[in-house]
C-alpha cells in the first residue's frame, strides 16, 4: 500500500499534529489491556483443554446403598437401581461401554482402607458403574445427573467431574467475556484513530486542497496518513506490550500461589507468547488501515 517515495516525502506536516501524543498514549493503553486480556483468554483456553481432557473418556456412577433393617432386601433394591442405571446408560448414543463392578472388584477396592479382617458382606456396599464414552463425544454431566436421578434416585455421578463441568462452563463464559473486551478495545482504538484522523484532515485542509489541485489522488494523501499513523501504532504497541509483560508475569506468579493446582493448569504456550509479542505489529496494521480508509472516505466527500 505504501510507496517508498511517499514514505520519504510527506507534504503533510503530520508529525506536528497535537493529537499524536494522545493517539500514542491511547494505543499504548489499548495494547496493554489487549495483551493482559489476551493472556487471560489464552490461559483460560489452555486450562479448558486440560480440564476437558480429564473429563473426557470415562466417568463413574455410584449407587449409594439403601439403608434398611432387612439387609438382603436393601441390597436387592440397590441392585435394581444399578440395573436401571446401567440400562439407561447403555441406551445413550455417546456411551461406548457400561461395566458394573462385581462384588469381588468392589472388595478389592475397599480392602486397602478397611483391612483384611472386616467382613465386607455385612456392610452396606455402594455399587459402582464404570462408563466408557465414545471418542470425540462429550456428555453434559448436569443433564446426565438429572436423568440418572429419574431412573435411580440413589445414583450419583463422580462429584469432582460434576464440579469441574461447572467450572468449565464458568471458564467458557469468562472466555467469551474476555473476547468481548478484546473486540471493545479494538473498536475504541479504531474510533480514536478515526476521529483523530478526521481532526487532522480538517487542520490540513488547505494543504490537501493544494495537493488535489496538483493532481494528487486520494490514495496519495491517504498513504501519508497511513504511514504516519502506523508508526504511532507501532510505538504505542511496543510501549503497551512493554508494560503488559511484567503485569502478566506478576499475575501468573500470584495465581501460582493459590492452593489446589487449578490455576496451575493455566499456562501460556510459546505460540501464545509469540502472539502477545506480535501485538505491536497488529496495532500498527489496525492504525494504518483505519487511518487509510478514514482519509479515503472523508476525502470522497470533497470535490
Amino acid at each position: 500500500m505504501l510507496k517508498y517515495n511517499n514514505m520519504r516525502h510527506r507534504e503533510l506536516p503530520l508529525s506536528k499534529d497535537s493529537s499524536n501524543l494522545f493517539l500514542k498514549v491511547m494505543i499504548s493503553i489499548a495494547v496493554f489491556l489487549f495483551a493482559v486480556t489476551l493472556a487471560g483468554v489464552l490461559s483460560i483456553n489452555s486450562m479448558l483443554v486440560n480440564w476437558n481432557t480429564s473429563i473426557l473418556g470415562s466417568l463413574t456412577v455410584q449407587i449409594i446403598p439403601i439403608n434398611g433393617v432387612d439387609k438382603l432386601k436393601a441390597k436387592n433394591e440397590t441392585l435394581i437401581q444399578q440395573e436401571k442405571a446401567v440400562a439407561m446408560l447403555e441406551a445413550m448414543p455417546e456411551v461406548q461401554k457400561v461395566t458394573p463392578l462385581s462384588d469381588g472388584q468392589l472388595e478389592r477396592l475397599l480392602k486397602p482402607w478397611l483391612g483384611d479382617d472386616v467382613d465386607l458382606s455385612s456392610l452396606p456396599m455402594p455399587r459402582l458403574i464404570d462408563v466408557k464414552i465414545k471418542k470425540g463425544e462429550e456428555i453434559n454431566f448436569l443433564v446426565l445427573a438429572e436423568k440418572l436421578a429419574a431412573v435411580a434416585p440413589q445414583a450419583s455421578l463422580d462429584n469432582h467431574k460434576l464440579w469441574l463441568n461447572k467450572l468449565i462452563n464458568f471458564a467458557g463464559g469468562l472466555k467469551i467475556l474476555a473476547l468481548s473486551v478484546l473486540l471493545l478495545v479494538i473498536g475504541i482504538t479504531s474510533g480514536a484513530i478515526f476521529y483523530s484522523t478526521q481532526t487532522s484532515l480538517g487542520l490540513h485542509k488547505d494543504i490537501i486542497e493544494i495537493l488535489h489541485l496538483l493532481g494528487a489522488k486520494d490514495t496519495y494523501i491517504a498513504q501519508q496518513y497511513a504511514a504516519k499513523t502506523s508508526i504511532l501504532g507501532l510505538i504505542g504497541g511496543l510501549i503497551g506490550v512493554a508494560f503488559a509483560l511484567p503485569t502478566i508475569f506478576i499475575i501468573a506468579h500470584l495465581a501460582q500461589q493459590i492452593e489446589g493446582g487449578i490455576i496451575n493448569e493455566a499456562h501460556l504456550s510459546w505460540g501464545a507468547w509469540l502472539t502477545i509479542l506480535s501485538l505491536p505489529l497488529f496495532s500498527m496494521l489496525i492504525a494504518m488501515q483505519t487511518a487509510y480508509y478514514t482519509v479515503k472516505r472523508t476525502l470522497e466527500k470533497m470535490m
Partner: protein
Amino acid sequence: MSSEPIIKMENVCIRYGRGPEILSNVNLSLEKGSFHYLTGKSGAGKTSLLSMMYLAQKPSRGNVNVFGKNVNFANRNALAMFRRRIGVVFQDFRLLEHCSAFDNVALPLRVCGMNEKEIKKRVNELLKWVEIDRSTSAITSTLSGGEKQRVAIARAVINRPDVLLADEPTGNVDNDIAPKLMKLFIELNKLGTTVVIATHNENLIKEFQYPTIHLKNHGLTIINPEDGDKYAEI
C-alpha cells in the same frame, strides 16, 4: 490544430450560495495551443472562471468540458488525472510554506510517481532558470514575494502541462523578470501548451499581443489584437 476544444464552456453560470450570479450563460471554447489573456475589473469573475478551468469548482449551471470530457460527470480519479495535465499559477501562490522551494516544485512530479533522480534533474534545472537556484533548500515561508511567485510558476510548468492557467503571474516580480517569465509562457505555448493568463498588467498585454477574454457584466467577449482601438482600451 485539433478540432476538439481543449476547454469548452456551455451556458455556464457561477454563483456562491444564494448570492447573485458572478458569471451568467458564459460560452467559451479554447483550442489546443491557443494563448489568451483574461481581463476584467476586480470582482468580474476572473478567478471564478479560472477555478472552473483548473477543476477546483463545478459550475452552478451549464457544462464544462475539459480534454473532451464533461467534468460534471467525471469521477475523483479522472479529475485528478485531468488536473495533472493543467498547470496553475495561483494569485496567492498557494505554496506549501513548510516545504522547501525544491519540494514545492517537485510536488506535481511526485504526485505522478516520477523517480527522484529524474525529479532532481528537472527541478534543479527549472529553479536555476527562474533564478531560485541559491535558495532551493530554503523553507518557502522565508522567501520574498517575488521568489515565491517564481517558485509557483516553476511548479506550474514543471510537468510540461497541456494547459497553463496563471492568475496575475507577474504581479509580484520585478519589471526585468516579468518579460522573462512571459517568454517562458510563450515558449511553452509554442510547444503546444494552451495558455490563459489573468492579468491587469497593461504593459504586458501591449508588449506581448494575444487575444483577450474580457469579462464584463457577468459575461465575456473575446478581443483580438487586430481589433485595434478595442484592444487598446482593455
